[in-house]
């Protein structure tokens, strides 16, 4: 297949897909062809396509589940008028709960409530699970075996991210010891807290780490 045709097909497929596409998925489009394109060709097409819309109102963006064409944030003011429905707004309680799942996953509801100092309405979890932003990744081996929550690729897709690492780091805990060395109240556990969001792979790979952590 000519490179130009390959590019046309891939471009059209990316434009028409209602789901992000990976290189492997794109290669599958050609599985019936006699001359299948090489993976490198597909990658080359993608990088050319990325460049071609560098100065346009849309972009080819790599997010967690693959590549997708999307409008640029800069022109949202105009383009948003296309949609009658307003983008949903999420409450602070919702966003704080989400932030805790993102940075502290796997985490139980009780642990979230502990940090926030208030009980969390069930509807928050209902929405998080319904939107498939958060999923149950296991159960904590404590009485009641509470569900532990983790994030999904869908969440990353929604927030325009390819990995959790792209999220800003958590603010650092100021070390009280610096001022009050004799107090030494920061316990060891607290210092271990990662200030980067937990890696998705780590979560999906092993829940064991969750049990050892707490």
């Amino acid at each position: 297949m000519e490179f130009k045709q390959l590019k046309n097909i891939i471009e059209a497929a990316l434009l028409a897909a209602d789901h992000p596409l990976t290189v492997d998925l794109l290669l599958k489009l050609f599985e019936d062809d006699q001359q299948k394109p090489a993976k490198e060709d597909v990658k080359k097409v993608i990088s050319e396509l990325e460049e071609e819309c560098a100065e346009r109102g849309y972009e080819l963006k790599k997010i967690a589940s693959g590549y997708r064409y999307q409008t640029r944030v800069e022109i949202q003011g105009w383009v948003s008028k296309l949609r009658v429905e307003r983008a949903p707004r999420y409450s602070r309680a919702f966003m704080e709960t989400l932030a805790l799942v993102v940075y502290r996953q796997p985490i139980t509801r009780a642990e979230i409530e502990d940090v926030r100092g208030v009980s969390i309405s069930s509807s928050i979890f209902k929405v998080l699970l319904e939107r498939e932003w958060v999923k149950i990744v296991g159960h904590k081996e404590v009485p009641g075996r509470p569900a532990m929550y983790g994030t999904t690729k869908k969440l990353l897709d929604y927030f325009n991210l390819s990995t959790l690492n792209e999220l800003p780091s958590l603010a650092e805990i100021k070390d009280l010891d610096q001022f009050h060395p004799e107090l030494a109240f920061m316990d060891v556990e607290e210092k271990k807290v990662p200030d980067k969001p937990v890696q998705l792979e780590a979560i999906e790979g092993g829940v064991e780490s969750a049990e050892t952590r707490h």
Partner: protein
Amino acid sequence: MTEELPKPASDDAAQAQQNEMPFAMVHGEPYSVPPQDLYIPPDALEIFLDAFEGPLDLLLYLIKRQNLDILTLPIAKITQQYIEYIGLMSDLRLELAAEYLVMAAMLAEIKSRMLLPRPIEEGEEDDPRAELIRRLQEYERFKKAAEDINGMPRVERDILEINVLQTEVVVEKKLPQVELKDLMHALQQVLRRSEMYAAHEIKKETLSIRERMTQILSSLAVDDFVEFSSLSTVAEGRDGVIVTFAAILELLKDRVIEIVQSEIFAPIYVKPAGQVIEGARLEEGRDYGI
């Protein structure tokens, strides 16, 4: 409790406590921040409280209002403010007050512990504020993280996914595929729901009889007068005959077929029930032997 507040914010009190712990030392400087007016009119309280995500959030706000480093928390002053809010709140929003009351109790406890004179040798004892400060810091981190995430571009609000129409071409219709295990599973489900089977002990039936019943009915559909002996074949052997016989009896019992014989030792015929033909009309299968 609010009447007799100590004044850790005043220089005297701060100095007095300094001997025991450097609570009033801020970045090496003596503590001297004057208390700010934190008063919020009761009318505004309800709206005010809606803006908070809980007692930690309120406490953080109060601390910010004093423009203080969270690490140098002036517990007594904060406690006083806090408890005043609780007092107002319990009049207005009783159901909300519980979580705030827990916090107030914690603040009061910290305050009272700090008021007690402490022997110097107990210096290694944990600062009663430490746990509170830890929780406040922890909460503040996630409050900030939530704001950060909320500020990030996201689909719907800041980005639209592009999904260009696919020109339609005729797609051949795919028939659903069924796997045997799915079928077994369906049966298992229906059996679990049904008590009919348990009552009749159907499980003793073998499938071959059921299958043969269908086969017999199929032959009757082609030719509605079939000779009994033609329903089993030699190749099937004794088991085959027994299965056929059992199937015929079962069909007879259900009054689906009838069996006729014009005279003793004459050929036995099977026919669909309800069709009148010449010869004896027989009611029960047990009248017939082989």
